[in-house]
């Protein structure tokens, strides 16, 4: 995680308190993961789930934060990735890694087919179109019983591993997920400063202006959508391999609200925001357990309050970048 720090810091004014503020989110994430790794057991499981969601939210952030687009249907790609992994390993006995790759390929292909017409839409149409895509995939996972077992769900999905070696321990899974999240964060930090990232910033600022500068707007939007779908698919696959079970509810509408809450808490358009948000939102309900039923209620209410009073997210306090 410190490596991505060195990417972001050159643009910051060289004042010590500022780089301290940049380091804070990464320090928080490292501390939480380290604590969970030492403690093992239940804390490790909670943080593992948070990291799985973090992968999804990093993808969401690429599309919504960097490119300033709207999608309420990214859960569709998590479902495609998750179910491809689950079906290929549990039913057809594939190795997890090729199954994950197949899932990602499928999700990206679907995103390409869906994104091409959908991303031409604007405003409410885009919002409702993407929401519909999430629902279509949900309905298919429910109804295609011969493959997905409907509401019953698929179980007996093997844990991740290469060759004969499987990661089964809590700590092993936690460290593996931490590595994946670190990689994805590094990727998004590199992307932010690259030619693609700058093009996306331009698109986010004004599509017309970006087009006037000669940026192929549609192509960059699609690219951000595909990257976002790939990360969503990865997160879906990681989920099924870590839990060993998948059902349609996992990737339902509540996932959309949950991940948006994470993105807003962490700070939309920032590098560290998605991970910070995922950890905070996953840890909060653990501090007052027994309120499981109230979780979605609390997330929804918190999201509304935040949209009204802190529309740029809580960790925008830590961000040195102003949103484009």
């Amino acid at each position, binding site marked *: 995680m410190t490596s991505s720090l060195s990417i972001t810091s050159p643009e910051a004014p060289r004042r010590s308190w500022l780089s301290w503020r940049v380091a804070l989110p990464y320090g928080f994430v490292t501390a939480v993961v380290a604590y969970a790794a030492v403690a093992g057991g239940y804390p490790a499981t909670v943080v593992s789930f948070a990291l799985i969601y973090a992968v999804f939210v990093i993808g969401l952030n690429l599309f919504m934060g960097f490119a300033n687009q709207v999608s309420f249907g990214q859960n569709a790609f998590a479902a495609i990735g998750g179910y491809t992994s689950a079906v290929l390993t549990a039913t057809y006995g594939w190795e997890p890694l090729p199954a994950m790759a197949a899932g990602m390929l499928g999700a990206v292909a679907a995103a390409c087919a869906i994104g091409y017409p959908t991303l031409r839409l604007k405003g409410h149409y885009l919002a409702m179109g993407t929401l519909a895509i999430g629902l279509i995939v949900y309905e298919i996972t429910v109804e295609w019983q011969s493959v997905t077992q409907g509401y019953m769900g698929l179980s007996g999905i093997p844990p991740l591993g290469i060759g004969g070696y499987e990661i089964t321990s809590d700590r092993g899974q936690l460290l593996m997920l931490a590595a994946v999240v670190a990689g994805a964060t590094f990727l998004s930090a590199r992307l932010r400063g690259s030619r693609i990232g700058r093009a996306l910033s331009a698109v986010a600022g004004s599509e017309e202006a970006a087009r006037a500068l000669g940026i192929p707007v549609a192509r960059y939007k699609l690219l951000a959508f595909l990257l976002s779908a790939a990360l969503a698919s990865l997160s879906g696959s990681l989920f099924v391999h870590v839990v060993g079970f998948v059902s349609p509810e996992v990737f339902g509408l509540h996932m959309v609200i949950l991940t948006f809450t994470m993105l807003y808490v962490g700070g939309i358009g920032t590098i560290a925001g998605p991970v910070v948000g995922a950890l905070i939102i996953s840890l909060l309900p653990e501090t007052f357990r027994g309120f499981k039923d109230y979780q979605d209620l609390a997330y929804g209410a918190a999201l509304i309050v935040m*949209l009204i009073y802190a529309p740029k997210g809580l960790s925008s306090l830590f961000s040195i970048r102003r949103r484009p």
Partner: protein
Amino acid sequence: MADFSYIPQVLVSGLGIGCVYGLIGIGFCVIYNASGIVNFAQGAFVMLGGMLTQGLLQRYGLPLLPAALVAIAIVALLGVVLERVVVRPLWDRKATMFTMILATLAAQIVIERVTLLVGGDQPKTLPMFTDLPPIQVSGVAVSYQLLWIVGSSLLAVAALAAFFRLTRTGKAMRACAINREAAALQGIPVSRMLAAAFAISAALGAMAGILITPTQYTAFNVGVPFAISGFIAAIVGGFGRPFGAFLGGLMLGLVQSLAILGFGAGLKTVAALSVLLLFLFIRPSGLLGAAK
């Protein structure tokens, strides 16, 4: 493909569900015209209509008609509360369209969860309004519930048309739809019109939910699919045209019923959503053209 002799029967039942989608679609248009907002919590009103009526029937032993009327009134009030608590603060802060969508979608989830906590997760239903065997019209069975649905919907549409044309408030709301700034300059309280639009829209949604519940079931999570169907109806009719939305709803109902006949009931939502995507990609301004 199934037996063709079922087609008239299927079309008749499609007409019923189509009226319901039409009412929900009108709800979308009324709010959109008053404010330019698309209320993604519209489904919550539909769900609450059915659930509240069922609760009033069972817990307080009210007869069906008063229970339904009380439920509609409560939901209309909730629409105003939603407008005051969620939409108004964002509106005053000039929130982006996306923020508004996300906030109303979050409100939908909150209302769903509260309903789940209060009412439980078991599907519920309402008795038929008139419990008599269906009427046979040249081999097609027409249930009394269908007559209730079509009759009440047409009545609601007519009442709405009269409201928009004849009353002061209705005319003021139409003025807001044409140009909010100009309406405000004429002394029309635009923000009060927004609250009124939420109340009307919520009442229409609740009515739709109550009418359809006896033919299927209701539960805390039926809202979103209904909302999307209503949205499709509004798009097919050309967004912002209430009566276009009603026709759009009828069309969607018919298409969906035929899809059920062809592919089975499980895929009815997929069929509706496919209609949505088709319209979005090919003709986003709807069959009649957009209102503005």
